[in-house]
C-alpha cells in the first residue's frame, strides 16, 4: 500500500474514530513525493567515474501536519515503514502528539478550491526513467568531444519524474505527475552553463548555451586592462539569480517580515514603500508552463496563482504561507521554490546583444566567491569576482579580476540600473553602477 494511502486512511480514522480521545485529530494535511531519478556526472574530463557514476534513486516520503482536538499542532517527516507493522502508525501518532505545540494561526487547513491548469510534466523525461537513458550518456559524450582541447570539464545531468500527492482533511485530494531535468557543466571550474526546467532541454538551447560558455571561456584566456572607478558592472543572469536568492528572497518571506527579521516592516508593505526603481517589478509566478518553479497547488493545499511582490518599484506583499497570511490578515500567496518561480522584470529591458553594444567601459561578472556569507538584511555586499570579463566599446576583450562593494537594494533603486534579457535565461542581466576595483 502506498504511503499516501496509508496516511490518508490512518489520519481519517484518527479524526473520525480515534482509539484514545487524547489522540483525536481535528484536521490534517499530507504531502507525499514519490519520485525516481537517474543521473550521470563528469569529473576532470571523465564521465561516470567513481565519484560521478550513473545513479538511480527511488524515493517515497513526505510530511504530515496535524491539528489535534485541543487546537495544538504537530509536524513530522514520514516515509514508508520498513515492515508491515500494524502498530507502526499508532506508535507514530503517539510520538507526534508528544511533539504538539500551540500555534493557533497555523492550525488552519484551507478548503479546496479549483486548481489552475499548469504544465509541470514532460513525458519524455518519464521515458528516460523507464530506461531510454541514452540522452544522458550522449549529452556527456558531446560535451567531452566538443570542449576546448585544454579545458577540464566538470558536469552533471539529472532527470527526475514522479508524483506529488496533497491531501487535506477539508477534502482536497490531488495527485499529479511532475518532472525535472537539470544539467550543468563548467570549463576549468571557471565558467559554466546550466539548465533547470520541468522539461528536457531543446537541442538549440543546448547548442546556444554551449556556444555562449565556450566563447566566454576563450575570452578568459586573454588578459584585459584593469577596471576603473567609472567601469559599469554587469551581473550575468546566473549572478542576478544568486543575488535575488541572497538578498531578496529572505526579505520577502512573510514570516521574517512579521517577526521583524527582514529588511522591510509590515508598515513598509502597507504603505507601498518604493524600494526598487519604478521600472522594476518582482513577482512569483507558478503558472508558467514547464518552469522549475511552477506547480498546481502548494504543500498546504493552496492553488497556484500569480503574486506581485513589487509593482512599479513599490512593495505589495511578501510571499505568505497559510499561517503568515492569517497573521497578515489576507489570503495566502504564491510561493517561490528557492529562486525558481521568482521573476524580476524591468520595463525597459532590451536584448543582451543590444545592451552589450552600448557598454563603453564595463565588466561582466559571471560568478563571485562568498555571496552566501553576505548580510541578507542589510543588502550590503563585499565580494570577490576573479575571472570576470572585461568589456570595452561594446566588445568582450578578455579576463579581469575584480572586487565588488555595494548594496543590492541601492542597485535596484538606482535610476542608473538597467536590465537586458537573454533567450537562455529567465533572469535578466543587470547593468549597475557600484563599487568596483581590481582584485
Amino acid at each position: 500500500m502506498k504511503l499516501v494511502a496509508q496516511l490518508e486512511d490512518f489520519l481519517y480514522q484518527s479524526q473520525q474514530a480515534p482509539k484514545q480521545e487524547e489522540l483525536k485529530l481535528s484536521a490534517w494535511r499530507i504531502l507525499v513525493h514519490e519520485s525516481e531519478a537517474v543521473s550521470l556526472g563528469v569529473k576532470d574530463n571523465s564521465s561516470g567515474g567513481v565519484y560521478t557514476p550513473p545513479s538511480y534513486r527511488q524515493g517515497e516520503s513526505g510530511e504530515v501536519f496535524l491539528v489535534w482536538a485541543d487546537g495544538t499542532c504537530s509536524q513530522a517527516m514520514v516515509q514508508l515503514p520498513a515492515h508491515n507493522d500494524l502498530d507502526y502508525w499508532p506508535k507514530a501518532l503517539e510520538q507526534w502528539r508528544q511533539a504538539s505545540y500551540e500555534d493557533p494561526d497555523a492550525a488552519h487547513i484551507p478548503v479546496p478550491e479549483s486548481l489552475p491548469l499548469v504544465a509541470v510534466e514532460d513525458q519524455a523525461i518519464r521515458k528516460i526513467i523507464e530506461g531510454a537513458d541514452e540522452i544522458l550518456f550522449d549529452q556527456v559524450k558531446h560535451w567531452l568531444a566538443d570542449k576546448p582541447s585544454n579545458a577540464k570539464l566538470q558536469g552533471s545531468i539529472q532527470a527526475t519524474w514522479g508524483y506529488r500527492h496533497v491531501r487535506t482533511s477539508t477534502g482536497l485530494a490531488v495527485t499529479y505527475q511532475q518532472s525535472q531535468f537539470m544539467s550543468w557543466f563548467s570549463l576549468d571550474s571557471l565558467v559554466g552553463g546550466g539548465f533547470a526546467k520541468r522539461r528536457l532541454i531543446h537541442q538549440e538551447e543546448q547548442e546556444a548555451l554551449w556556444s555562449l560558455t565556450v566563447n566566454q571561456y576563450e575570452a578568459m584566456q586573454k588578459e584585459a586592462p584593469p577596471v576603473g572607478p567609472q567601469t559599469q558592472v554587469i551581473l550575468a543572469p546566473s549572478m542576478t539569480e544568486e543575488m535575488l536568492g541572497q538578498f531578496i528572497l529572505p526579505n520577502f518571506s512573510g514570516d521574517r517580515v512579521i517577526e521583524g527579521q527582514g529588511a522591510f516592516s509590515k508598515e513598509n508593505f502597507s504603505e507601498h514603500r518604493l524600494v526598487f526603481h519604478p521600472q522594476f517589478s518582482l513577482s512569483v509566478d507558478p503558472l508558467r508552463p514547464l518552469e522549475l518553479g511552477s506547480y498546481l497547488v502548494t504543500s498546504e493545499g493552496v492553488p497556484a496563482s500569480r503574486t506581485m511582490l513589487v509593482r512599479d518599484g513599490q512593495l505589495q506583499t511578501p510571499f505568505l504561507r497559510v499561517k503568515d497570511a492569517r497573521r497578515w490578515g489576507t489570503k495566502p500567496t504564491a510561493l517561490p521554490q528557492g529562486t525558481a518561480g521568482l521573476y524580476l522584470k524591468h520595463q525597459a529591458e532590451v536584448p543582451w546583444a543590444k545592451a552589450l553594444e552600448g557598454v563603453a567601459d564595463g565588466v561582466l561578472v559571471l560568478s563571485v566567491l562568498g555571496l552566501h556569507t553576505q548580510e541578507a538584511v542589510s543588502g550590503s555586499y563585499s565580494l570577490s569576482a576573479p575571472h570576470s570579463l572585461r568589456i570595452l566599446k561594446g566588445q568582450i576583450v578578455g579576463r579581469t579580476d575584480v572586487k565588488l562593494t555595494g548594496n543590492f537594494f541601492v542597485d535596484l533603486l538606482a535610476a542608473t540600473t538597467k536590465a537586458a534579457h537573454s533567450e537562455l535565461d529567465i533572469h535578466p542581466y543587470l547593468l549597475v553602477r557600484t563599487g568596483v576595483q581590481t582584485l
Partner: protein
Amino acid sequence: MEQKEIQTLVRSVLMEARAFEGYVIVRAQSRREWSMRLSNGRFERVSTGWDSGLGVQAFTSGGASGLATSDVLAEGVGAKLVAKAIQLAQRNEEVGTKQNRRIWEAPLVQAEGVNSAQKVFGEIPLLELQERVMSLHSRLREAFPGGAWQTSYRQVEEQWCIGRTDGTLVSFVVPRAVLMHQGTVRDQGQAQSATIHRSGVDATVLFEELKDHGLERKAMDRAGFAKAVCGAPQLPSGHYPLIIDYGLAKGLAHEAFGHAVESDHMHESVLGEEGKLRKGLRVARPGINIVDGPLVGDWADQPYSANGLLRQTVTIVRDGVLEAGLGDVFSAEEAGMPVTGAGRAESYRNVPLPRMSNIRLLVERMIPLKPAEHLMDEVKAVRETLLQNGELREGEKNLLLLGYRGGQVNPKTGDFVFQCDGIIDVADPDLPIYQPSIFSGKILSALEAIRGGLGEGCYDAIGTCGKGGQSVPSSGGSHRYLLMDADQQVSLGGERG
C-alpha cells in the same frame, strides 16, 4: 531501525549480490531527528522525523561503477537495488568510463562503533526539551529586549552500517545536537543579524546551557556588537595586520587548505602538481601545523569512512611543510598520498567524497590570553596582551575580525574570500568598530602570513561542508585568535561606488 536490524539488512543485500563477479558496497542509514524553532516567544515549529534507506554501489570486475538507492525498504528492495546498480555499472563500462579497482585493495574491517552520547536519543522526552528550550529563549528575550530573537534546537542520531563484498561490516552511531540563537538588531536605519551556537552530541548541551548560560551571554554580546556595526563606518580597502578569531581560522583551514588536499581534488588544486600532492612544499612559517581528524563528542565526529575504513587523524602541514592529504580509497594512491579513510557522505543516497572532519590550525608560538566573560572585555584583553608582548604594529591599524559568516575558495586558483560579523581596530585605544568587509586573497599567502596564536585551542567552530552538493557536518578551530602579518596578497575591504 535499530543497529542490529540495519546490520541484518546489509548482510541480506550482500547475499543478493553474491553471484556477481564484481564488487559491491552496501550502505544503510537510519536517521532520527527532533527539531524545534522559536521566534519572539512562540514556537514556530516542532518537528520529528526519521529517514531510513539503502544504497548499493556496484563495480564491474573491470572497475566501472553504478549506484542505486532507495528509501522504500519494502520486500525485495535489496535485490532490486543490486540489479539496478550492476546494470548501471555494466552500462558505464560499455561507454568506456574511467575504471577504478582500488576498492579491491581496501582492508577487511569488521567493527561496531560505540555511541558517544551521554543521553541517548529519546531519553529526554520531547515535551521536556520544548520546555527547556522555551525557558532559554524567554530568558534571552528578557535580557536583550532590543532584538528580534529566534532560537532553534536540533538533535539527530544517525546509525550507519557499511558492508562490502570482502566481508567488511562496519556499523556506528553518530549523535549530534545544537542549540542556536539568532538575533536581528536595528540601529540608525540599518539592520544586522548575529548567530551563535552551542554544539555537542546530545541534549547535554541544553542542560549545560541551563547551568551556565554561556551561550546567552555570547548571544547578548554579539547582538550588542551587531548593533554597533549597524552605524559603523566602512574600512578603506587595504592590506592590514590582522587578528582573526578561531571561527574564521577554522574557515580558513577548512576552505583554503583542507579542500585543497583532498585526494579527489589534486588535478584542480593549488597544492597539487600533475595530479599529485606537492608533499614537502613549504606553505607556512616553521611552527605552523594543520591537523584533521575526528574528535569524540564533536559535532563532526565520524569514526569510520562511508566506505567502511577507519578514519585516521592526519597532519596536513607539519612545521610549515605540506606533509599529507586526506585520502579515500579511490583516489589516494593516484594523488600520491596514503588512504586515510576520508570518504564521507551526507547519506546513503550519496557517493562518498574525501572530506574533512575536525580541522585544527595550530601555531607553536602561542601567547597566553586571560579569558574574559564578555566579548568587549576579551577584546580589551587582546589589545593589552598584544601591547605587553610588542605585537601591535605601531602607526597602523591592527584589525580584529570577529565572527565567521562563511567563505569560499577556488582550490584551483587559490583565491579565497571570507566574511566576518564586524571589525575592531585594536591598535586604537578607543577600539573603533567597522562594518564587516571581504577578507580575500591567495590561500598560500594567507598561511604564510600567520605569525602566532593567542590563547588556548578552541575546536568547536561548527559548520556544514557543501562539497559535491552534499551537506556534511564539519568543525574545527585554532587558538582563540590567530595573528597575521599584513600581506600584499591578502586584503580586506572594498570601496562602494
